[in-house]
């Protein structure tokens, strides 16, 4: 589950500016905070069950630098805190304390290459490497994971188009990728759509997103052969979300992001909220 969260964040960041690659020597840097707290989750049957409140809080640095006009280098560095609430009992039994665990999460490195750009259309591909730098057995019982301990590679294709409707300019993006995972985890595919427009003299960017991630169910890892580790394989989720980005200077902007799951398997059911401050040079 943690791996899904990390990969989702980096893909979200990458997709936010994908297709149109960074110009040579130009960069986009963002410090962000991402937060999810859930007291229910999707089970393996897709139904929703309650759970003790657990949360993930990730502070991160994201950066993309144009190595050439067609090649962009991307990095994502998360610091992750996982926590569980304490429990107070109606019977008056002594409360159980909560717990939290924090460490460096799984780092992602990626390159994006612009394949084609013409008449408002842009087509690019991204290779994303997920490094197992997080802790896959954190906390007192090993379930406070800040990473899943596996190296994964995701190959993504991005297609975008800018277009006017009346006097208002819009853009539309789509992406599809295959995420190959190791250590017995099932591979995944994901698909995303995004559209947006700028208003208020181009200072405010409003955008909406649809993302889905589905397991190929081809992994060997299950509770039967996990050698004692606590993990979640075959995680699936479909999200609807949006983002507001306000540019308060020529180079600085602040963003607010919300993502809301509409279906899933073995993953928390709760909205994820994020805020970030970005610098574009």
């Amino acid at each position, binding site marked *: 589950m943690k791996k899904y969260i990390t990969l989702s964040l980096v893909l979200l960041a990458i997709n936010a500016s994908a297709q149109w690659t960074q110009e040579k020597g130009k960069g986009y840097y963002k*410090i962000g*905070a991402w*937060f999810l*707290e859930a*007291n229910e*989750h999707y*089970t*393996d*049957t897709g*139904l*929703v*069950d*309650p*759970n*003790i*409140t*657990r*949360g993930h*809080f990730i*502070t991160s640095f994201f950066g993309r630098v144009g190595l050439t006009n067609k090649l962009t280098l991307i990095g994502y560095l998360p610091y992750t*805190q996982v*926590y*569980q*609430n*304490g*429990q*107070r*009992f*109606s*019977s*008056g*039994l*002594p*409360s*159980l304390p*909560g*717990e*939290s665990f924090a460490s460096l999460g799984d780092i992602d490195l990626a390159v994006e290459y612009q394949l084609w750009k013409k008449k408002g259309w842009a087509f690019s591909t991204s290779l994303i490497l997920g490094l197992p730098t997080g802790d896959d057995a954190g906390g007192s*019982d*090993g*379930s406070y994971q800040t990473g899943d301990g596996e190296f994964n590679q995701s190959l993504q294709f991005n297609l975008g188009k800018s277009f006017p409707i009346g006097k208002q300019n819009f853009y539309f993006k789509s992406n599809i990728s295959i995420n190959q995972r190791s250590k017995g985890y099932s591979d995944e595919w994901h698909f995303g759509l995004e559209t947006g427009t700028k208003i208020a003299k181009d200072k405010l960017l409003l955008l909406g997103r649809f993302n889905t991630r589905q397991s190929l169910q081809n992994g060997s890892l*299950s*509770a*039967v052969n996990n050698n*004692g580790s*606590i*993990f*979640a*394989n*075959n995680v699936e989720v479909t999200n609807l979300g949006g983002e507001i980005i306000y540019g*308060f*200077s020529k180079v*600085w902007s*602040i963003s607010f992001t919300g993502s809301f799951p509409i279906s899933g*398997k*073995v993953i928390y059911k709760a909205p994820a*909220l994020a*805020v970030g*401050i970005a610098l574009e040079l």
Partner: protein
Amino acid sequence: MKNASFIIVCFLLLLSCVGEDLVNDYVDPDLRISNAILSIPEGVQYQFTARFFDESGTKVENPTLVWLVDPPTALSIAQDGTIQAIAAGEATVIVQTTGLRGDIIEARTTFSVTAVTSTDTSTSTSETSTMTADSETSTLTTDTETSTMTTETETSTMTTDTETSTMTTETETSTTTIDNNTGTGIVLAPQFYEGEIISTSSYILEGNFRYEHNGTQITLSLDENYRASTSLPGLYLYLGNNPNTVNGAIEIAKVTVFNGAHEYILPPSIELADYKYLIYWCKPFSVPVGEGTIF
């Protein structure tokens, strides 16, 4: 604007503080007679013991108990639970205590007082033993609240009525045993329970189990029809008296078998009446995902 942005980010950082959940862990208080018998010969003494678990499933040490018998002509009883069998026939021992809410909590066990013939004690014991061997149709029925136990000697039928759950067991060979420690001819109640594991979540978890004390320790045997979802991360098995929490429960093992028959050998310190529930617990989500009512 930059300062405001940093303030907002810092505010969001505060949201990661660990909070507290309120868990409704109420269970019906449970008073249980821990050493029921099927029969006792006239003139023999036997001491019943009872354990009381409060509304959180916590065992109450030294509860105030009131012991009663019905009918009084069959037995006499002291307030430490010791009975003296007086006259042949069916008899019921009743034990009562007061719950935290002031309500009377009660448990009952019904058994036979067997007539002692002119033969000596060893003959009487032998007759009882024969009765036990014939109990191929013995039926144990448990209902969860009032705990009534009835035994008819010839057909060896035992019925226990309690209020919150029902367990029906058909046994081909009764494990009724004679209390050989005393040699008094007392026939102890069966030292096993059978039941069904049910899912209390959306995960698949099902199967029958047998919970049996072999005289030394308890074996928990899961039947061939046992199935659990392999998607459940961090599934553990506990024994407890409150299926809503593992607070106060004892962890048996991490679940490593997800299909088919298998068994757990429990520590000798665990007695048959110590725990009422099997609790299947998902640690990462901190929730019960299934349970089995032992009795």
